[in-house]
């Protein structure tokens, strides 16, 4: 990260971390696919697959510790996010919600895992992809369930509102369903991860920089590191919370599309 700052030729003093620190150059020159975030995404897919295949392999009546751990995550998504929110048709969407939750969670937590230390979701491309999936799924579900015209009518014309109000409400509703929802979904996740990582960089790189200064600055440096460590715990909470929120909102949107009346 510092090397990048050097690369773009900033001056010798302390360069506060900025958006440029999230642009990690490919380690194979000119290969856009050979970057840290992309490797991390594949690593997350491998880790999640291995963990859950091992955990579910025996599917025993009395679970082992591993199976219990896997089941806890699965049944949390299945029951608290799927069944509670979507209702009786929830089972169709459990695999998607489960994938969404574990994928976001692991990629977020990468932000504080030693050696990896980069939250993949701070690269906007990935939240965009996930929000697009959710966007297409909940619209598809709604159209399948109610038919295209009825679905559009339900979105545009809320029942129980005086007719002139539709001039105001209808564009708002359309914007909500087709613009605001996917955008907020992806931006919320991205911004949280981006800002969280930036915060950690400020305190840890700052602490490092203070350590190279005069004796007075050296004494301040431990405080910067301490705050960095405290923020790491805070970040872990945010990372879990964001995975939960993204999945919860997806479930809510699907539930809304399935419901006959909003």
């Amino acid at each position, binding site marked *: 990260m510092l090397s990048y700052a050097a*690369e*773009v030729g900033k001056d010798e003093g302390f360069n506060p971390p*900025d*958006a*440029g620190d*999230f*642009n990690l*150059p490919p380690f194979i020159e000119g290969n*856009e*696919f050979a*970057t840290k*975030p*992309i490797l991390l*995404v*594949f690593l*997350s*897919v491998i880790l*999640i*697959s291995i963990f*859950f*295949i091992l*955990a*579910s*392999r025996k*599917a*025993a*009546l009395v*679970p082992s510790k591993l*199976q219990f751990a*896997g*089941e806890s995550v*699965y*049944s949390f998504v*299945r029951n608290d996010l799927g069944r509670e929110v979507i209702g009786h048709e929830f089972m169709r969407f*459990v*695999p*998607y919600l*489960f*994938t969404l939750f*574990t*994928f976001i969670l692991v990629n977020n937590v990468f932000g504080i895992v030693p050696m990896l230390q980069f939250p993949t979701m*701070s*690269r*906007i*491309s*990935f939240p*965009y*992809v*996930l929000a697009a*999936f959710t966007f297409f799924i909940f619209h598809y579900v709604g159209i399948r369930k109610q038919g295209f015209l009825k679905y559009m009518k339900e979105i545009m014309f809320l029942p129980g509102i005086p007719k002139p109000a539709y001039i105001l409400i209808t564009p708002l509703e359309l914007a909500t369903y087709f613009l605001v929802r996917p955008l907020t979904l992806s931006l919320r996740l*991205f911004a949280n991860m*981006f800002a969280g990582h930036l915060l950690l960089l400020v305190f840890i790189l700052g602490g490092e920089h203070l350590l190279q200064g005069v004796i007075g600055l050296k004494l301040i440096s431990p405080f910067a590191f301490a705050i960095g460590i405290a923020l790491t715990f805070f970040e872990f909470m945010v990372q879990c919370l964001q995975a939960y929120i993204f999945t919860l909102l997806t479930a809510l949107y699907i539930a809304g599309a399935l419901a006959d009346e909003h």
Partner: protein
Amino acid sequence: MRSIELAAEELNPLIPHTAEIIVGFIAFSLLYLVLRRAVVPRFEKAFAERTDAIQGGMERAEKAQIEAEAALKQYKVQLQDARGEAASIREEARAQGAAIIEEMRVKAQEEATRIAASAQAAIESERQAALTSLRNEVGTLATQLASKIVGEALDDQVRQSRIVDRFLEDLEKSK
């Protein structure tokens, strides 16, 4: 080294990268397929089996409870029977005891009556004997007294008894 324009574009964190979008799409789809094929059905199977086991256990417990209740009922009925039987036995014993006492009492009464009767008979015969011997002795004494007074020797047994009889008859007549 990147070109300046590329670097500037990359500094805007809201602009997605084609490579990352492709990778994100493929990686996520891949994970979805793996979890859907290999993980979700197995967890669901385990859940279903567990539910089954719990339900089976509950049914068994219910059955056992019903059996226990039936047994309890049976025991209660048996206890009631036993209590009734004990009471009737006690009643019978009491009645028998009373009958025995009554019988004994009657027997004792009879015995007492019998003893009293025999004692009376004995007394009667004693009295008779005493009367007889008294009569003899009184006769002798009276005769001796009379012979002394009369001066007539009345040694003869026959005569003596005739005189005594006559004397006694006179006594009875004078009564």
